[in-house]
């Protein structure tokens, strides 16, 4: 597609429920990132996928968070047993960068985000 698509754009859920957030990156982009943007805070790195390499999960805040990327394209971020502190905007970004590159391919294109509200 022309840009990074994320769904749903808004999700309201009850504490304790599981949620899935979807990201469809730009076609051909090998790198995919998930970030979390909380009110009044910056962007918190969650996870990074690069091609077929093992993902960098170092930013996931707890074992309730997981993500997968099927076929090197679409990614799903899953939050189990949601808590109120999980409320945030979850941003996905993709780029055409390859591992070790420091070229112009390192520019990330962001989606509009999925706003999660946990009641």
């Amino acid at each position, binding site marked *: 597609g022309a840009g990074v698509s994320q769904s749903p754009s808004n999700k309201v859920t009850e504490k304790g429920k599981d949620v899935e957030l979807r990201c469809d990156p730009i076609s051909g982009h090998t790198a995919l990132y998930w970030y979390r943007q909380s009110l009044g805070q910056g962007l918190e*790195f969650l996870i990074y996928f690069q091609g077929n390499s093992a993902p960098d999960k170092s930013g996931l805040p707890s074992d309730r968070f997981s993500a997968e990327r099927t076929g090197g394209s679409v990614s799903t971020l899953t939050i189990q047993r949601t808590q109120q502190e999980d409320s945030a905007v979850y941003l996905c970004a993709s780029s055409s960068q390859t591992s070790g590159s420091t070229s112009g391919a390192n520019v990330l294109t962001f989606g509009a985000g999925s706003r999660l509200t946990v009641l």
Partner: protein
Amino acid sequence: AQSVSQHNHHVILSEAASLELGCNYSYGGTVNLFWYVQYPGQHLQLLLKYFSGDPLVKGIKGFEAEFIKSKFSFNLRKPSVQWSDTAEYFCAALGSARQLTFGSGTQLTVLP
């Protein structure tokens, strides 16, 4: 661990005033540096980037940033701001870990 610091959380300026937003990063190796902007209700967008070469980089809408390696800084500047520049500005750094690390952001409000 790599980190990015933005010193100003909220800046309020009048139109035509000059702007400088501070950004410092902590990473000693080769680093790519970015400024992203988020206008109200819109996506994050790339404002400008530095990979190598001329340390003074120019971006869209009259913004520029200077990479000063000795100071680990990448400050954003604009000589004359407009009301339409009201937005949140994020500095970011990408090192060999391939994580794009963002600063906490600076909310710029330009008064008409």
